[in-house]
């Protein structure tokens, strides 16, 4: 089977709107899903815990930032702050709400909504200010959230070290683990939960992107005056974008703390992480959901692969400081190179490749 549009006839508008219009795509997607759901959980605990789950968490935050920055054109540096709200929200919901009412998926959803509301509050200045000036407001969100959770120890249950480990009972899922005889705290179960959330929310984001809401967001990004003349409420679109984006970041924060590292720690959600997620977004491609995932994988894996190369080829010549600095330099080079050559990031490169495959082997 070759990658070809020939023979894929679109006979109605529903078919024309499909996410994967080509048969080849559909087959690849189904195989990919089978791989993710059946093979990946059986790989090693190390692979799941050190590579896959963190990528799912930061990738989801990148998708969230993409809705705000890529689709609606509102720059944000508060991503880690909103993730932090999600993580602390999940923790407090699990801790304080009676067990028979609360379970991790519900807590993730609710804390995502909290984070979304916090996002709306810090997004209010976006109604009046644009572009780089908005960075100040979102940066304020980042520092405010950090200061807030640092100052009120109640949110960490008065844990003096500033870090709380997550109790095993939080992975109870209303006794589902016992029922199925599966260790729900184990990495395969954690992975599957994050995978389901990430695929679900990516699908939601993709639908938004190709529907009226997404078009409204993009019109606000491209020409806000023309958008308002068309009858689009620009403030409403901006605030909705903040809510949805921060909802994604909140859920991502919950996943990061609960399903990846297994503790709630303020230090993880410093401003560096906001920048890293912004790098993922830019390298992956603004405005593309699949691009966000590609960017997240690249930025997250680069230091790991680089260390691995150091260990195996240069007998451990690179220490962590070297790896970190080189990684930052590489991200910088990539961002500059992409901005010059391909502002659409990896997603645009991927689209070009697909276009070329479609024409291959007769490019004219």
């Amino acid at each position, binding site marked *: 089977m070759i990658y070809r549009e020939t023979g894929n006839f679109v006979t*109605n*508008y*529903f078919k*024309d*709107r499909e996410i994967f219009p080509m048969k080849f795509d559909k087959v690849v997607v189904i195989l990919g899903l089978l791989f993710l759901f059946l093979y990946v959980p059986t790989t090693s605990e190390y692979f799941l815990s050190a590579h896959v789950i963190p990528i799912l968490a930061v990738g989801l935050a990148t998708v969230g930032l993409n809705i705000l920055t890529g689709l609606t054109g509102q720059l944000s540096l508060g991503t880690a702050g909103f993730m932090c709200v999600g993580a602390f929200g999940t923790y407090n919901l699990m801790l304080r709400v009676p067990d028979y009412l609360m379970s991790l998926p519900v807590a993730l959803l609710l804390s995502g909504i909290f984070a979304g509301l916090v996002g709306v509050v810090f997004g209010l200045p976006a109604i009046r200010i644009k572009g780089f000036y908005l960075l100040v407001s979102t940066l304020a969100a980042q520092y405010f959230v950090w200061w807030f959770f640092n100052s009120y120890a109640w949110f960490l249950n008065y844990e003096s070290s500033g870090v709380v480990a997550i109790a095993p009972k939080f992975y109870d899922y209303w006794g589902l683990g016992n029922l199925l005889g599966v260790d729900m705290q184990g990495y395969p179960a954690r992975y599957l939960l994050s995978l389901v959330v990430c695929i679900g929310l990516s699908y*939601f*984001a993709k*639908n*938004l992107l190709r*529907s*009226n*809401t*997404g*078009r*409204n967001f*993009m*019109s606000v*990004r*491209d*020409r806000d*005056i*023309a*958008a*308002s*003349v*068309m*009858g*689009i*409420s620009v403030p409403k679109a901006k605030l*909705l974008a903040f809510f*949805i984006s921060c909802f994604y970041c909140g859920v991502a924060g919950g996943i990061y703390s609960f399903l990846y590292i297994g503790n709630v720690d303020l230090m993880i959600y410093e401003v560096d992480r906001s920048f890293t997620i912004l790098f993922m977004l830019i390298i992956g491609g603004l*405005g593309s959901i699949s691009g966000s995932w590609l960017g997240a994988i690249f930025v997250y894996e680069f230091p790991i692969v680089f260390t691995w190369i150091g260990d195996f080829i240069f007998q451990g010549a690179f220490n962590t400081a070297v790896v970190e600095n080189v990684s930052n330099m590489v991200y910088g080079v990539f961002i500059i190179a992409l901005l010059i050559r391909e502002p659409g990031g990896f997603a645009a490169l991927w689209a070009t490749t697909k276009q070329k495959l479609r024409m291959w082997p007769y490019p004219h």
Partner: protein
Amino acid sequence: MSDILKVENVTLQFGGVKAITDISFNVKEGEICAVIGPNGAGKSSMLNVINGVYLPQIGTVTYDGVERKSINPRDAAIAGMARTFQNIALFQGMTVLENIMTGRNLFMKSTWLEQGLNIGRAREEERVNRLAVEKVIKFLQIESIRKTPVAKLPYGLQKRVELGRALVAEPKILLLDEPMAGMNLEEKADMSCFILEINKEQGITTVMIEHDMGVVMDISDHVVVLDYGKKIGDGSPSEVMANQDVIDAYLGVSH
């Protein structure tokens, strides 16, 4: 026929600059009204006042029987005003289809949750509105470029897409800001046909700013002439052509 739009004693100032001074004119329902005048006469500002992008300091605009001191652009759109811009204001990052679909946003009633889940009303709305969009695409003969990003299109086609985006909103009144600027003769003829057809077949009142006198005199029913923010002529094309003030404004006066 009744007046759909009445501009009364409008004055618009930017700081010390008077862009429009005490202008009044009426637009009858179903006519093509051309607003002409030399550069800087205040024509685009006038259009911006009508649909609420600028707020005039003095004066009122009566549209569809409602007298307003000011209106915001969104309410103007809801009341059935659609417009195009002088320097094309398409959404550059979107395709032709997406741009024109944006013009249908007031017809989309489903919530973002339904749209995100792609269920029920949201799915059906995409289909119904796509049907309306396809009619406009067919009318403007841009079928072949429907999935092209607008940034890649030549100028003339972009103007056409922008007209489509305004038209698809099913407006009562269409405000066109220089729909034929920078076009060659053939493109102008096409665009004139579209405007005439929109006006005569679909009965949409059109207010148009245009510099090409041939086009203005041929297709408009009513011409308003502005110069330095003041109205110097108002009437049928032949009346305006005979107006001494208009001749002076365009050709200059001997001192």
